[in-house]
């Protein structure tokens, strides 16, 4: 076990806690770069999907996990990013410009939805974003002059410096690069006063306000950055699916993003990765073991959404920290062996804060 001996306040602010971190993350990076040379195209494609959902999950995590604002409309941001990117590419804009442009354009929508919802919290925000998401979904379907409607929209082949990247491997590397940049950005953001203000708002709006944090400004920022990142994910998603259908960006997709955040573990960037792995790989896992299951369970339609629902319910009831929280507990068990006490992670008794009196 390693003891961190802090001799400087700046140590609290570093990204790498110690050199071991740097070593292991470096090793992980090398492994990820090498994967397309080892695994088949199918698995590379699936991992690319995981990365894209992880990017969208980071967007969700900054909003829900760090600012405490829940959104059930993030699929709309994903869709806006995807359509913006494809339309820009179809007009001959190079990918290196259209990718950040679709992020920025989606960020504008984030501000647009963030401003009117500033006065809302909790349940009302969830309902309002749900309504926003379904309005945008209907617009995708009906505005066929721009989105192609139900005929769909073929995504043009992207090039970076003349290299085509529509293949599984190309999307894999592109998504990996965006994911690393987004994670690095978010980790840094959370160290700045801006990020600390977001966390303060999550923990208590009233105390944040009395510390001089301008709630409206920071909440709008949280929506903007979340929409920006989800828009980037949408641009990647367009290349992942290669053909945009308007009904792909529905409420169920938004619920998947929230599932990433909840199952992975609220309030941790590690959790996003675990959550994205879970959400993307569970369907594959079901497909693989489908024939092995007894009593024809594997043949039942609707197995996948019900498993999602079940896992979500179980996680909320029994492990609110998600996969990351469980991992911390397992790590603690080994580190403290044999001194683990039940009370180490006992959940504090909490009382519902009434919304009636504020």
């Amino acid at each position, binding site marked *: 076990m390693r003891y961190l001996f802090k001799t400087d306040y700046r140590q609290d602010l570093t990204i790498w806690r110690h050199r071991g971190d740097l070593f292991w993350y470096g090793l992980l990076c090398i492994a990820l770069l090498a994967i397309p040379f080892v695994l088949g195209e199918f698995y590379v494609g699936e991992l690319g999907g995981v990365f894209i959902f992880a990017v969208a999950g980071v967007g969700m995590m900054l909003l829900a996990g760090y600012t405490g604002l829940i959104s059930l409309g993030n699929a709309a941001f994903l869709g806006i990013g995807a359509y913006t990117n494809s339309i820009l590419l179809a007009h001959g804009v190079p990918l290196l410009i259209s990718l950040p442009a679709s992020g920025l354009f989606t960020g504008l929508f984030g501000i647009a939805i963030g401003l009117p919802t500033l006065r*809302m919290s909790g349940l009302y925000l*969830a309902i309002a974003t749900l309504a926003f998401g379904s*309005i945008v979904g209907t617009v995708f379907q009906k505005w066929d002059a721009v989105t192609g409607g139900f005929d769909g929209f073929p995504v043009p082949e992207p090039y970076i410096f003349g290299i085509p990247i529509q293949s599984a491997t190309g999307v894999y590397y592109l998504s990996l690069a965006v994911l690393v940049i987004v994670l690095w950005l978010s980790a840094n953001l959370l160290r700045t006063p801006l990020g600390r203000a977001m966390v303060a708002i999550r923990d208590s709006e009233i105390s944040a306000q009395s510390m001089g944090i301008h709630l409206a400004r920071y909440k709008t920022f949280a929506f903007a950055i979340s929409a920006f990142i989800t828009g980037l994910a949408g641009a990647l998603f367009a290349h992942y699916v290669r053909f945009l259908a308007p009904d792909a960006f529905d*409420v169920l997709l938004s619920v998947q993003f929230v599932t990433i955040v909840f199952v992975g573990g609220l309030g941790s960037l590690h959790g996003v990765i675990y959550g994205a792995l879970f959400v993307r790989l569970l369907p594959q896992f079901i497909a693989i073991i489908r024939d092995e299951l007894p009593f024809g369970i594997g043949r039942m339609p609707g197995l996948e959404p019900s498993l999602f629902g*079940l896992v979500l319910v179980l996680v909320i009831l029994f492990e609110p920290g998600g996969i990351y929280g469980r991992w911390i507990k397992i790590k603690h068990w080994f580190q403290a062996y044999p001194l683990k006490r039940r009370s180490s992670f006992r959940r504090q008794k909490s009382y519902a804060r009434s*919304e009636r009196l504020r």
Partner: protein
Amino acid sequence: MEDAARLLQLVVNGAAAGCIYGLIALGFVLIYKATEMINFAQGDIMMLGGFFAFALIAHFGLNYWLGALIAIMLTAAFGFALDAVILRRVIGQPQFAVVMLTLGLGFIFRAYAGITWGYDSVGFNTPFTNRTINLSGLVLGQDNVSIIVGTVLLCGVLYVFFSHTRLGIAMQASSQNQLAAYYMGIPVRTVFSLIWAISAGVAAVAGILLSPVSMIDVNMGFLGIKAFAAAVLGGFGSIPGALVGGVVIGIVEQLAGYFLPAGFQEVTSNVVLLATLILRPQGLFAEIAGKRV
């Protein structure tokens, strides 16, 4: 004259659809007032209620009225168990944990219904199917009229229950102040579970009334999203507000479908919802001023 009759028919159809929204919204409001939770699975409970009635009436061949009654009781018992077993545990957790929990439960109910009764639309014979009432030239479907009459009757029963029975007053008391109700000897936990039972029962009524108009299928729970608009418009805490909100949404939706180009009808309820939240967040019938949102 032709136009006026057409318009009146649209309004009646809209009011009928609105009554369904209102009944679902009523379920939201009852639960929200009592426990400050929003049950995102309310629409799916309505779906379950419809399927229970389908199973009893079409499969076991029960009389319509008897089958409907048993289906409502079954759904209510289900709602009671849902609160007693699962939702009571998350009191005190952040609110969006409850949102996600009920969303997850909704997925499970939908899958359960799909596995048990299949993914096709089903229907059963009701005394109102395919019959019309002719009121001096105005032709109305009995199914639509039955929804409106059923809703009015149910509201009357609920009003009497909440204002004139011991249990109903106990429920009001626990919604207003849990601690004080507890000191008065009201078993608050059981009362909350009973409120869940009532709101599940109301949802089942909505499902059964809706079945002659549109068939019962696994995805009918998505109507719940429109019912949010009704509840928010009514002020999310006011029972008459939820019903009025529902009827307004239903009528506006029908009129939008008639007067505006295609595509606007689907978004009407959501636009009304967002507009309400932005312009008048306390809703039309604000009960508690200067709070929430």
